[in-house]
């Protein structure tokens, strides 16, 4: 049963991530008074790219980087207790593992970027790395907050800490910080700095085409959904029935809401510069440190 849940969990992410991407695109279009593509367009995009020719400017590291990225996010997702139901693999990692796994995804992007030898990719990689460094603590502290409450670093315990009662001021503070960092996690305006189309033309991905690009895009979609799911699990413990299907369904609806939020925030903001963003992140880190400090004192 546990194994089944783990598999279903991964499958949900694999199948629904493009759909949510489609929702985001549609909502962007609505805000911009456009028709927008069909909601299932991202599926078409992925399929189309998988069949396209691969132009390779790099070396073998350039080739494996997209696969590493996708594999790392799938591994991270497989540990995730969607619907507050831990799968078989949840017991084999804790929050520190998840944090490091998410970083591995970022590293794969960087590896691909650096291997492409492209100057724009390097600019993008440099920005991406800075972003990883600066937003990872916020992510970490979100987890740590739960861990401190649950007195355990285990993934399910940490994520379900708010479900199990205690919310508190620190949690509210962290919620605000997480929301403020959300766009950075999912690399959308105002924090799509590493990809910045009009400056560095998708940055790290500039040399990618065909299946390599498809895998990276897929990785980005799943990552986006992961953060949305994380937000929902940690901060919005609406309901826990104990029925797997119901809980998952509820969470998926909540995730959809998060994507609506992402779209609205993204479509109503210009892109910031990396130097401005770094200062912004520094403030977020400071505030989340306060939140963690408060939790340590049980507030």
């Amino acid at each position, binding site marked *: 049963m546990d194994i089944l849940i783990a598999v279903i969990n991964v499958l949900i992410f694999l199948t629904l991530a493009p759909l949510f991407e489609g929702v985001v695109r549609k909502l962007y279009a609505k805000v911009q008074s456009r028709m927008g593509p069909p909601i299932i367009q991202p599926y078409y995009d992925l*399929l189309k790219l*998988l*069949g*396209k*020719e*691969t*132009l*390779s*400017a*790099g*070396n073998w*590291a350039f080739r494996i980087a997209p*696969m590493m990225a*996708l*594999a*790392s996010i*799938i591994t991270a997702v497989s540990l995730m207790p969607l619907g507050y139901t831990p799968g078989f693999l949840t*017991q*084999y*990692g*804790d929050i*520190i*593992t998840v944090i*490091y*796994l998410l*970083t*591995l995804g970022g*590293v794969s992007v*960087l*590896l691909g970027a*650096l*291997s*492409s*030898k492209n*100057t*724009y990719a*390097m600019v993008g*990689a*440099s920005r991406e*790395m*800075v972003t*990883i*460094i600066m937003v*990872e*603590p916020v992510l970490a502290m979100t987890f*740590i907050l739960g*861990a401190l409450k649950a*007195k*355990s*670093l*285990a993934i399910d315990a940490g994520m379900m800490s708010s479900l199990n009662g205690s919310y508190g001021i620190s949690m509210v503070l962290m919620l605000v910080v997480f929301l403020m960092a959300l766009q950075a996690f999912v690399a959308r305006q105002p924090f799509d700095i590493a990809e910045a189309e009009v400056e560095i033309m998708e940055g790290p991905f*500039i*040399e990618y085409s065909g*299946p390599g690009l498809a895998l990276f895009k*897929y990785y980005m979609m799943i990552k986006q959904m992961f953060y949305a799911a994380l937000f929902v699990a940690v901060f919005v413990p609406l309901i826990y029935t104990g029925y797997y299907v119901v809980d998952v369904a509820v969470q998926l609806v909540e995730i959809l809401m998060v994507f609506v939020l992402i779209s609205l925030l993204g479509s109503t903001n210009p892109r910031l510069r990396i130097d401005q963003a*770094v200062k912004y992140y*520094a403030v977020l880190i400071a505030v989340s440190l306060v939140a*963690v*400090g408060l939790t*340590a004192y049980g507030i």
Partner: protein
Amino acid sequence: MSDLYGKLILAMAILLCSAVVVPFTAEKRKLAGWLNFFFVAVAGAILLSISYSVIFVKSLPTQLVSVGPLNIYFLLDAFAGFFLGIIALMAIVSAFYSIEYMEHYDDYGLRSYYGNYPIFVLGMAAIVTVDDLSTGFTIAWQAMTITSYFLVRFEHRKPEIVRAANKYLFLMELAWVFIVAAAFIAGTSMGDSIHAVTRSLGGAHGAVPYLVYGLIFLGFGFKAAVFPFGQMWLPDAHSIAPSPISALLSGVMIKTGVYGIIRTFFWMVPHTETFHFSGAFWGALIASFGVVTLFIGTVQSMKQSQSKRLLAYSSIGQIGYIIFGIGAALFMVNAESATLQMLGLIALVGVIYHVLNHAVFKGLLFLTSGSVLYSTGTKDLNKLGGLINLMPVTAVVAGIASLSISGVPSFSGFASKWTLVSTSLLAGGEAPFLVIFGIIALFTSAVTLSCYVKFFGMTFTSAGAEWGVGREIKEVPAGMLIPKLFLTALCLLQGLIPFFYFRTIIGIFADSGGSLVSAAFRNMHVQDHVFNSAMGVSVGIPGLSSVSSVAVPAVLLAVFAAAFAFAAFLRRAGGSKEREVPTWLCGYQDLHDKTRYRDKSMFAALRNLLYWTGGNVKE
């Protein structure tokens, strides 16, 4: 006299003999290299056998050994054996690597190199086995320091190298003065064992214990490269020495400082009615030093544009993790709460684990950058790039070492950093400052990642060597690949089966009597709270929830492999054909030396934000 002590003296004698004999053959460079390796390997094998025996068979008590006219206390307990093992291992690997590597210094003779190398190893072996802070300690320290001084100033015709080496020598002597002074202030005479020092320290009052511990921390802190002392010498000394020596300096020698700190703060603690050891104070202090060191060292590392300087600064950062772990452990094992005590013990395991891991991957990284230096003649990251196709084996090795040191799951750095971070986070309920420290450590490991993205990216991927290096670049000969591959295998092993290392290290502490913690390790049944989970580790701390933290690299690797296979399937699923194209730069300019992104431009925003941390590279 136990025969192990005899074997120890025998190994030292072999090393001494090597130092006398090999320089005579220095004209024949290869031969000298092989001879040196032979002697070091024999001595190292003996040392390894000692190490194995004290760790896995029986830990020994202190013993007075007559070495010529002197009577010196030696101690071969499991703890000393552990360090002895690392030293022996790295010494053998480095000696093998030296055979080929020293070939490229064709304008420098090797007499001094092979004369000093064995004694340097001897000094390090001695410093972790002598059991005093006066006579034996001085001999060992000086043997280690003076020989390493000559090894560091190997390229003695370059004035800046001699200057840096002199500074190194001066600071190490200063550190020696601190430590020996501490021993005398504590009220001992020449040749007293540490046990005796501890006893006389037990009668001390007022400020004296603070002075003694302070001086000792200062002295070993210098050696271990704690901020701000490390920055004074380490980046210079480690980056200018020949790479095998850098590997030994960073991988092993600075660990003797770690050894000294642990040996004194956990063993040299009197248990008397009148004496109160303020473990919480010293723990918090050392942990603070550690956190500052790990943060500053790593950030400075990120700013470097020379591969070996980057690695050297990163050593400071990694030592920071170790020092932080020691401090946190010291703080926690001296606490009242059983939860904290247990966490402290686990943290201590993490410390020793990280010492081992760091020795291997940092040694590996220095050997890698040495190989690059050997092939290209430069360590300037701005001139390198694109070596992945030219030096594929070295590239893979460097990649694995980089992933390890960055703490990517399933690689060795992950397991030990995970231990250090998770214990300090879990301690948060009772000691909030440790949570903050843990978060800083976590943050810093992302910065570490950026260092190695840069190191690996600017050296092996990207582009640049075709313009920066004016010669043909080839993979290094097998003589330099074998040691690296060996260390790589070790590195992978250490990452995949952390449970084995946990169990071994717990055993080491439980067997090494006389410390603050050996009783605790035995009485609190640490091994019953650390569960085997597919050779990974799952920890349950009393007072916290039943599963407090988990790290199972093997399972993660399996899942990752499956997911990777899926990704590979997707990649092929569409039947996409591949075509080689040049890098595209908007259509007017091609990729050339000037359109290439430079190392100093990497992470510019973060560098500017963290300018105040120092270590900035001037143009």
